[in-house]
């Protein structure tokens, strides 16, 4: 059961967003820019970074919903599973592996990133903005994951729900709710 009275029937972060629309707006906007807007990293690559960090943080809701969004972009869930298990062995580019290594360091704490990590990513073709966005995606998911788990949100084990949500996130992005919203209570 959630730690506070969140709206019922809404899973994970969508319940926190419905509870506090004032903070939901910038949080949605941030995710939309980082994961959905045009970027030299594809949306699939950026969703893989988000999924990987969420799996390292052990956040079931975020890992599953962003994993579904990544699978929707990439047309397969195989690579998503590989990245979660061992990204060095996954069928992704060496550049993305180097960025996932940076994201993994950020997940443990910002100071873990070294100039050698960044240099390595750069030799494999990563630009400054790609490195910036990787650090911020990883940092942002250290927020979203803690928000979702720290409120004790409802995180159903229902794969078809996440698949639908992932489809919505992949096509529509993050500015609009991915779940039908409950009717506002009559006052």
């Amino acid at each position: 059961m959630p730690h506070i009275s969140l709206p019922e029937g809404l899973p994970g972060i969508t319940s926190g967003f419905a509870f506090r629309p004032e903070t939901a707006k910038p949080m949605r906007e941030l995710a939309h820019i980082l994961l959905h807007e045009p970027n030299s990293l594809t949306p699939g690559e950026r969703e893989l970074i988000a999924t990987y960090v969420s799996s390292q943080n052990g956040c079931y809701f975020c890992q599953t919903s962003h994993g579904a969004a990544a699978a929707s972009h990439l047309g397969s869930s195989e690579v998503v599973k590989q990245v979660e298990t061992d990204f060095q062995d996954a069928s992704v580019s060496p550049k993305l592996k180097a960025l996932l290594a940076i994201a993994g360091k950020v997940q443990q704490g910002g100071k873990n990133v070294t100039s050698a990590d960044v240099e390595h990513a750069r030799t494999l073709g990563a630009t400054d903005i790609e490195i910036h966005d990787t650090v911020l995606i990883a940092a942002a998911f250290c927020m979203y994951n803690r928000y979702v788990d720290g409120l004790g949100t409802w995180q159903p084990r229902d794969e078809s729900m996440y698949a639908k949500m992932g489809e919505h996130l992949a096509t529509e992005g993050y500015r609009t709710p991915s779940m039908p919203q409950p009717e506002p209570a009559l006052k």
Partner: protein
Amino acid sequence: MPYIALPEDLPGIRGAMAFRPETARPLNDLVETLLHSPNSLTSGERELIATSVSYLNDCHYCQSIHGAIAAASLNDNEELVKRVKADFQHADISDKLKALLVIASKVQKGGKHVTAEDVEHARSRGATDLEIHDTVLIAAAFCMFNRYVDGLGTWQPQDEALYRERGKRVAREGYVTVSKEYLPAEVVTK
């Protein structure tokens, strides 16, 4: 030296925000709502939560600037800010804020560390659902801001006076207003 080519002369998160104004806008909107907008928790209390989490994450820039904003919001009581960082259970703050700081420190370790007992305890000290929500989100957000600032290897000056002066301005004017000096006008809302 920063890991990427951030604008020089802008310390900590300001360099990163000037580098990428598109993400700076929602980041400033979020922190404005969480720490500066009217709330049943005072700005000073909320800045203490942000400072405490930044201290636990060992982010020099964030704990210094938010510590300075907290002090500016608390009649320049820098001693209290130091005390909260070192040992908040023995600081001169309300029992409710102590209970919220416990929740924030659990969130800093990971969201799953927060227990129903932590939340019940805060509630028995008068915390509302909204205050508990905002405490969790402030703590979570600073786990982002701290990683963003340290993960890019930003410039973090040691000069305390610089933070003290900046802290007074942010406490007075808020985050969105002061961001106008380093962000292009068209990205700053309001």
